[in-house]
């Protein structure tokens, strides 16, 4: 039991669900020995939540359970939860879980005279005794309302049923379909009043997210927010971003970015291991190339890199990077680099996140490159993106992964500041790539906007590609003007010739030394 002794929960004992995050929100789980109502529309994950509650109880907490289902039969349920990695068949054989499918067919049933639901009680009691159950799921008992016409009897019997469950100290999960005017279609909340959890499956801009909220928890404090949750290959996980502690270890080790001059700008040693770096820039400023360069450098050190490419296919990316002297293919062949090229918006942000989690757990990379994060959401102002990223970054940090994110932004300055404000605060290092346009010529420029915990250059550098890779060149400042591209070359030659007084002697000295 995770109930704390120091506060109110001394009287309220809780039964852990074993669902990631849910026990955190509820301060230890569902009220032990009482029924909890789980409400939601169709396809919200009610059954999955209930099933995981039973399975985790049986497997992890030594509490056998009964799953009484009214809508799908045992085989269907077993098949459905197998996708979460739960083997109900095995648990049934081990007498840790009892399944009972209650089928009600209105057309087969004629009602005449008085009756009660003792048959249901007997079945439930029998199942409970068979496995010595401590947990019970009724999914979803509302089906009775459509199967039986005498709702007065039914309501009286439901009241008796919940009393019966409480008397036997069963920790129960009752699922219910969400109603139009009341919480549930048939007002189950009237009977189950101790704890109510609401599930929601929302689609915004064609992208779906699942959310969970603890509406009510009598006698206990609980998180009141709506928390996104995922149904992944290992069951449900509720993601209480606001309660995640910032307790990941901070590495003092530095790793090179693969661009020597950039490392120089970052205190001479590159970025911290396990930190996160954001590279934002307008189209065509070289974001992907910087990302690829970091990946290349990591592979060259013998590390493993996972690259999520959302704009190009793996082959296309490899070809394009080859043109600037970065050979990604050899790392793929050596198994150090995995490129996942996909369209994340196809699946929905949350589901894609699950996919990323699984990929990271599988491959155990040292470096993850996401190119670009702006493609994780169709809508740039998506409120969901920030919490999602926050969770992703936390997850990567806890997995000891150095993360590099690129982000596409508009070309103008104002839009840039606004569009990045959400995610940039999550990043340890932030590079900005921009286009400088002057005198009919466009040049790429790079600057380090921030880099936590290290001295870094405040200067804008010119950013040049060649078939030998990426290079940074100090911009040439003369007579209060910043010169780039041809202008810089021209001015440099002039300076060398001694005609113009140099404004940045250091810069020129370096250039000279290089030639």
């Amino acid at each position, binding site marked *: 039991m995770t109930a704390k002794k120091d506060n109110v929960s001394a009287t309220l004992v809780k039964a852990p669900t074993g669902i990631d995050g849910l026990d955190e929100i509820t301060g230890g789980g569902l009220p032990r020995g009482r029924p909890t109502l789980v409400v939601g529309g169709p396809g919200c994950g009610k059954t999955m939540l209930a099933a995981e509650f039973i399975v985790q109880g049986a497997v992890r907490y030594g509490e056998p359970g009964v799953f009484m289902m009214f809508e799908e039969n045992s085989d269907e349920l077993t098949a459905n939860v197998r996708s979460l990695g739960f083997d109900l068949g095995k648990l049934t054989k081990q007498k840790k879980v009892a399944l009972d499918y*209650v089928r009600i*067919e209105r057309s087969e049933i*004629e009602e*005449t*005279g008085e009756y009660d639901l003792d048959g249901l009680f007997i*079945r439930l009691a029998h199942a409970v005794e068979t496995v010595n159950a401590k947990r019970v799921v009724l999914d979803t008992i509302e089906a009775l309302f459509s199967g039986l016409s005498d709702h007065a009897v039914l309501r009286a019997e439901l009241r008796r049923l919940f009393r019966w469950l409480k008397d036997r100290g069963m920790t129960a999960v009752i699922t219910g379909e969400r109603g139009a005017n009341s919480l549930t279609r048939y007002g189950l909340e009237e009977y189950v009043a101790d704890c109510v959890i609401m599930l929601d499956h929302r689609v915004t801009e064609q992208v779906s997210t699942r959310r969970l909220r603890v509406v009510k928890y009598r006698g206990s404090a609980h998180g009141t927010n709506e928390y996104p949750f995922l149904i992944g290959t290992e069951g449900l996980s509720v993601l209480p971003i606001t309660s995640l502690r910032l307790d990941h270890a901070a590495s003092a080790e530095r790793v090179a970015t693969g661009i020597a001059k950039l490392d120089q700008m970052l205190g001479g040693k590159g970025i911290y291991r396990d930190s996160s770096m954001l590279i934002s820039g307008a189209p065509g400023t070289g974001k992907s190339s910087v990302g690829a360069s970091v990946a290349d450098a990591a592979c060259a050190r013998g590390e493993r890199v996972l690259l999520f490419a959302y704009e190009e296919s793996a082959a296309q990316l490899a070809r394009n990077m080859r043109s600037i002297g970065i050979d990604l293919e050899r790392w793929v062949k050596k198994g150090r680099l995995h490129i996942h090229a996909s369209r994340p918006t196809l699946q929905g942000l949350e589901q894609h996140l699950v996919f990323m989690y699984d990929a990271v757990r599988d491959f155990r990379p040292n470096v993850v490159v996401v190119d670009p994060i702006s493609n994780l959401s169709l809508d740039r102002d998506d409120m969901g993106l920030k919490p999602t990223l926050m969770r992703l970054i936390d997850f990567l940090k806890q997995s000891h992964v150095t993360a590099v994110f690129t982000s596409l932004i508009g070309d103008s300055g104002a839009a840039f500041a606004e569009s990045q404000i959400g995610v940039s605060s999550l990043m340890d290092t932030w590079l900005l790539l921009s286009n400088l346009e002057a005198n009919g010529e466009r040049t790429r420029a790079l600057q380090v906007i921030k880099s936590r915990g290290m001295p870094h250059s405040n200067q804008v550098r010119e950013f040049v590609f060649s078939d030998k890779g990426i290079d940074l060149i100090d911009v040439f400042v003369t007579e209060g003007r910043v010169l780039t591209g041809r202008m810089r070359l021209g001015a440099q030659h002039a300076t060398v010739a001694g005609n113009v007084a140099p404004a940045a002697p250091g810069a020129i000295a370096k250039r000279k030394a290089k030639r």
Partner: protein
Amino acid sequence: MKKSAAVEPGKPVRAVKVEWQLRLYVAGQTAKSAAALRNLQKLCETHLAGRYEIEVIDLLVNPKLAAGDQILAVPTLVRKFPEPIRKIIGDLSNEERVLVGLDVKPVP
């Protein structure tokens, strides 16, 4: 309380298949179940004399049997034969509805 009106429960005595095989599920000896059995016997004698058998199953004694016939409510009368299976729940006090439910043509 295992008793039967026409034959012993679970094993038809006659060699010929009985035309109407009925099964009544109850839970203990309650007023409702007693009434249901009484009503059923009366009805069968009136309309199906010599052509029926009733098996009474007490779920308190045999809880396992509840799942097989998908019993929720008690008393429940199940028409096992002729097929398809029909169910009538309640104390069977309304003869008219029981006959409709069993699909028995009432004697004119």
